[in-house]
């Protein structure tokens, strides 16, 4: 008898967890890519049902790297059966020397929302909105500021605490309790870093992407 009670509770708990999990989900949207790097790399999974765990090494970003920019493109998949929003928070990258690499030196934009297969939901009454100022490809929109330093329309310094970068209506047609290959949307997180005369050193940062219930917009 005690075993059946335990089993019932377990099934209930798992059921609740599953119901919760299928509502909002973020995962890899495909293999991330890097261009223009010297001794750089990016790792992640090509599997859209895999977790979003990406490690970017921009490599050498002093003038030893003669490429005009190091660009990293990270596809991110989203699934939901309700309106959603995606926020990003950052930790790290706190160099005291203003001539060292700063958060404002890493361009960050959001591009190219697109369906992830046939079970992705197409809503006619609402669109997916890339929040300002993130709707740009920083590698294509870099400019030289008055000080001579490269600037971007949006950077990691644009993240002030958890910052919403994207929102919209529901993303998935089905209510599957597990990730599928074709049941949501993908967008690209684009990072750009121009090699410059930064003060020497190694810098690092961590970004957490979070999907949560968003503004209640119709589908």
């Amino acid at each position: 008898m005690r075993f059946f009670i335990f089993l019932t509770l377990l099934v209930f708990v798992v059921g609740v967890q599953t119901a919760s999990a299928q509502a909002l989900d973020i995962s890899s949207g495909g293999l991330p890519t890097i261009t223009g790097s010297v001794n750089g790399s990016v790792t992640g999974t090509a599997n859209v049902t895999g977790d979003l765990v990406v490690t970017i090494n921009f490599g050498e970003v002093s003038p030893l790297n003669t490429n005009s920019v190091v660009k990293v493109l990270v596809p991110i998949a989203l699934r939901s059966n309700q309106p959603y929003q995606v926020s990003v928070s950052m930790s790290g990258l706190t160099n005291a020397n203003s001539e060292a690499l700063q958060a404002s030196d890493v361009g960050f934009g959001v591009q190219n929302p697109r369906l992830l297969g046939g079970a992705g939901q197409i809503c006619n009454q609402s669109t997916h909105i890339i929040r300002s100022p993130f709707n740009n490809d920083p590698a294509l929109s870099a400019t030289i500021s008055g000080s001579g330093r490269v600037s971007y329309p949006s950077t990691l310094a644009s993240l002030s605490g958890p910052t919403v970068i994207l929102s919209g209506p529901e993303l998935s047609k089905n209510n599957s309790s597990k990730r599928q290959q074709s049941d949501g949307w993908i967008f690209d997180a684009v990072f750009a870093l121009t090699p410059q005369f930064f003060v020497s050193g190694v810098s690092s940062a961590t970004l957490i992407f979070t999907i949560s219930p968003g503004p209640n917009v119709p589908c």
Partner: protein
Amino acid sequence: MPRLTKPLLLTILLVSAVSCFGQSTTGTVSMSATVSKFVEINSGGAVTLTGNSGGGVTTDGVANSPLAVSINLGELGPSNTNSFVTAQVPLRLRSNASYVLSMTATVTSSGTTSNRIGAADVGFGLGTITRSGSGVNPSGTDTNATSGDPTLAANGSVNATTGRYEFTAVRSNLSAFSSATTALSGPFIMNAVPRSNVNGLSVPAFFAIKPQFFENGTTTISVTFTVTAP
């Protein structure tokens, strides 16, 4: 099967099944970047040759291009009545770290006597150091280890005993640079700007020879500048 084993197995089974669904509301992107010390020396522009009789600039400097200058100083015997033959070679340095500019010089003459042109007969010095332009770090003190323009009266004179003109100030002639010797040092030059920025630290390198009754022949002077970030 013991009473506790069944629930335990079921728990593991079910939890594993949920884990396989792999759904998550968060994802992580970790990033890193490396900035190594960087220094470079380039030409700061065209060479200025004065006081020469014959000769000329064979390969001129081009601003922000690799430094590879070739100069024919012309006649250095008494038939050249100018007080000095002087070549001014503009240098441009850039770095993201403290730098040291060192120099090595060799002087080879076809003459066989002590009256041939030697390293001590070639005056040398670095002139006024300029840090200007967008993206250049204007602060910090650069240390010029030479005595500046070697033709200045304070930097040389005729030896009262031998009659030969001598560059006498500290590191004012090439004999002081027979091995790599520091000529200039200072703090980082460039702020965080891309390499396409053409500004930097500018300094002229002066080379001077006083025409005298040197032993006839030809002389080759070779100078190598090296900048490092120690």
